[in-house]
């Protein structure tokens, strides 16, 4: 395999987000720095793949991760299917052609800045505003090699506690080795490897991700969280998450994403699968803040994500909450397949596009079981030249008697050059179903602004206040810590949108 700059850390690092705690972390960073120094030379030739994708690359990734034969075959099958597919064009997105052969599918990151002093001050300013703790700022800014070690250590600390409850929470690579029977039973059972173009690509080359298994009757004792990051230059990130909640189990899972600022577009194609058996309850929250590109639309992440939950059991519930402020392009439709009778699906979303960002996001609610219920609350905010589309499907199959859906999509426009669009699809085949959809689009009302200004609130603060109110319904669904972050994230993202 070819050479390039390298270090030992996994570029597609998944690391668990540790609640703020000071000193321990610094020691950890010091420790990993030592290890990194030692491993530097030997790893150059083996850890990095040149750009390009073929069957050998898929085999190499699988071998590098020490996967069993069935897993390699599964990847190859997905890859072969991917070759026959064409990229989807139905979304209201302007996407430049993506050269899949120009992407490295397993690359060590470019050496990051060695200390905070080298980090772009613009980025630091952002973290300052977000109130991210100092040690975490270093981590977020891409200061060399923190990722892998963090995730391992944090994972280990928690794992003991979790194991006592019977919960499995580990990386996907570990799960393939340690719990092959579970992975084999559930992987691809919600999002088949042939599901769509990007899911097939992900199935072929996914590098890592989280695996969560909550056994029967267990209420997960803590909120599980993961922090995703794209670090390396010219790489794609393809993580895969699988969460299984057995009968009566419940879990809340949080996911955060950031990426450093780079001039070129980077590809992120993830797959998330959720399985809820009888009476199980999964809550999945995302704060997505991938690098959106600069104010001229240069750079930024192409975010193509397939997220789907399968309410397989009776009375199961899957709830998606997302705050999408990042990425140059977002293509993401977290969905619920309501198979079990009386199962419930929910989708709460805030999507913000500023400058040249484009988002085409929404959900699918597929009602199959009887008395299934779904609720969709989608809030879109467009500023600058941002284009924001809600695209959703509510489908009631023949057997889904008593199905009920309520959908509300609101869009807020800030500025003359942005766009807000709504594309709902409603397909009903059962005469006892009740489906309601409503959507509105407007700008921030002059009356509201005037009222705030007359009370001495500066224009920018007034806009923040109104936007916060607009999103309140969704933020309420987020765990506290995330809700605060999300609110600040919106403020930062909207900076310069007014006046």
């Amino acid at each position, binding site marked *: 395999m070819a050479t390039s700059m390298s270090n030992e850390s996994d570029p597609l690092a998944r690391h668990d987000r540790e609640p703020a705690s000071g000193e321990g972390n610094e020691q950890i960073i010091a420790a990993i720095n030592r290890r990194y120094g030692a491993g530097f030379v030997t790893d150059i030739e083996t850890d990095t793949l040149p750009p390009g994708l073929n069957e050998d690359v898929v085999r190499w990734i699988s071998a590098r991760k020490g996967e069993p034969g069935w897993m390699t075959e599964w990847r190859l099958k997905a890859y072969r299917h991917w070759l026959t597919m064409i990229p989807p064009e139905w979304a209201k997105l302007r996407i430049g052609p993506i050269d899949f052969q120009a992407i490295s599918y397993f690359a060590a990151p470019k050496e990051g800045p060695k200390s905070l002093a080298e980090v772009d001050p613009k980025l630091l300013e952002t973290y300052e505003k977000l109130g991210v703790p100092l040690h975490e700022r270093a981590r977020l800014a891409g200061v060399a090699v923190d990722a892998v070690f963090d995730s391992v250590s944090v994972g280990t600390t928690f794992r003991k506690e979790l194991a006592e409850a019977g919960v499995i929470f580990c990386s996907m690579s570990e799960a393939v080795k340690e719990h092959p029977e579970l992975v084999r039973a559930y992987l691809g059972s919600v999002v088949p490897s042939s599901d769509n173009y990007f899911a097939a690509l992900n199935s072929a080359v996914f590098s890592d991700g989280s695996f969560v298994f909550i056994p029967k009757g267990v209420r997960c004792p803590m909120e599980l969280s993961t922090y995703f990051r794209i670090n390396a230059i010219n790489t794609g990130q393809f993580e895969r998450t699988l969460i299984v909640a057995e009968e009566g189990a419940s879990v809340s899972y949080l996911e955060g994403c950031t990426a450093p600022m780079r001039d070129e577009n980077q590809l992120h194609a993830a797959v998330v699968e959720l399985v809820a058996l009888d009476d199980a309850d999964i809550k999945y929250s995302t704060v997505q803040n991938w690098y959106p590109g600069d104010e001229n639309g240069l750079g930024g992440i192409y975010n193509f994500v397939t997220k789907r939950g399968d309410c397989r059991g009776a009375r199961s519930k899957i709830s998606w909450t997302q705050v999408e402020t990042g990425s140059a392009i977002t293509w993401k439709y977290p969905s619920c397949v309501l198979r079990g009778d009386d199962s419930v699906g929910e989708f709460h979303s805030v999507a913000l596009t500023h400058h040249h960002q484009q988002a085409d996001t929404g959900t699918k609610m597929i009602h199959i079981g009887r008395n299934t219920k779904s609720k969709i609350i989608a809030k879109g905010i467009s500023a600058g030249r941002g284009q924001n589309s809600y695209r959703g499907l509510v489908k*009631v199959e023949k057997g889904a008697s008593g199905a009920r859906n309520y959908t509300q999509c609101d869009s807020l*426009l800030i500025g*003359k050059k942005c766009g807000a669009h709504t594309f*709902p699809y409603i*397909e*009903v085949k059962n*005469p006892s179903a*009740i489906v309601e959809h409503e959507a509105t689009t407007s700008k921030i009302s002059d009356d509201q602004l005037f009222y705030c200004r007359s009370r001495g609130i500066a224009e920018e603060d007034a806009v923040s206040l109104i936007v916060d109110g607009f999103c309140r319904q969704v933020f309420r669904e987020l765990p506290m810590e995330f809700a605060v972050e999300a609110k600040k994230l919106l403020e930062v993202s909207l900076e310069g949108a007014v006046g």
Partner: protein
Amino acid sequence: MATGFLEPLLAAASSSAVAGGDWLAGVRERALRQLERDGLPGPRSEAWKYSSLRALGQRRFEPGDAAAATRNVDAGLLELAGVDAPRLVFVNGSFRADLSRLPSLPGVQLRTLSQELQEDPDRLRGFLDRPHADAADAFARLNTVLAADGPVIRVAAGSVVEPLVHLVNVGASASVDLAWQLRGIVEVGEGASLRLVEHHVGEAGHEHLGNSFSQIVLRAGARLDLLQVQDSPESANLVRRTEASLESDAHLELRSIEAGARWMRHDLAVELSGDRSRFVSRGVFALHGRQHADTRLDVRHTARDTSCDIVWRGVADQRSRGIFHGAIVVAAGADGADAQLSNKNLLLSDQAEINTQPVLEIHADEVKAAHGATVGQLDERALFYLRSRGLSRAEARSLLTLAFCRVAFDSITNAALREHIDAMMLERLPIREDETGQEPASP
């Protein structure tokens, strides 16, 4: 690639000489080439997502009706309560002077496309040469290639046309399956106003495919009240397209009643291209049996302070399928737009299906836009109330369903016409429970 469906139709196009200038030959040639290249929209066409053309594409219809001028048509078909003269009748795509009534009216010209093509084809420029670049508009292209007749109505600036103008499109039964084309043009001059009824009827018998395309231009300050009543028999397959363009302060009021035809598609494209132009629309489809109705409404706001107000209702019973697509686009710079769309549907049978898709595309910020869509059932409490007043369950259901549909036509001021539509709708409404005596489970 011309499919089995297009083959005989396109062959007819290349062999027939049409009146008109060179420009028209060029326009037809271009549309023909596009059709040969793209054929009918395939399964991946978003605009035809819920109305597959696969089955139709394999059917063969004979192009046009050579005997259209002499076919006997039941005079009763042409009548519409409350509407007298003037009347223009087209049978299988050809004008029938013998069935029409054309009194001379000041300020309005009631002519036909065939007449204009003979006498003054250049007046049709700007209508007939409108390109259809999107392969999804295959039927508009087909119409451009083949249509040789249709109504041409021009209202002079400032004229207020008092009587209701009645256009009747008859699909008469022939000895073979026929495909016919009709191209209509309506131009209402500055400050003028016109009331028009577009009436689609037919005779049961051999199947036919009617492809009718109307182009409407409302000049500054003009007003058009258009009522479309589609009451074709089960043997009809109808593809209709209505394109309207509104200049400043123009007002289009459209009511659309879709009751008949086995397979129906209606593309309705309205462009609010003049400042302060306004489009108000009320529509309903009531389906039963194996009917398939697909209404696709696209409203584009491209000028300032434009508004649209759209209310559409749908009823699907038995094994029918109803599709509604209502898109509102506010272009950049179209500030002050006010757009409202509501689509409510009743799904009355477990074999029926409703697909609805309200769409908003907003590129300006001084905008108020909202849409809503629902699919549901009759209110059990209302049914209970009516039954407690002595109505049978079936009567109660019919009455409530009729009330649900009425929003599309209860503002028609012509009482006889309104009552006629009322009776027509009532005839289409649910009777299933009467026949089976089956009571649904309580909610």
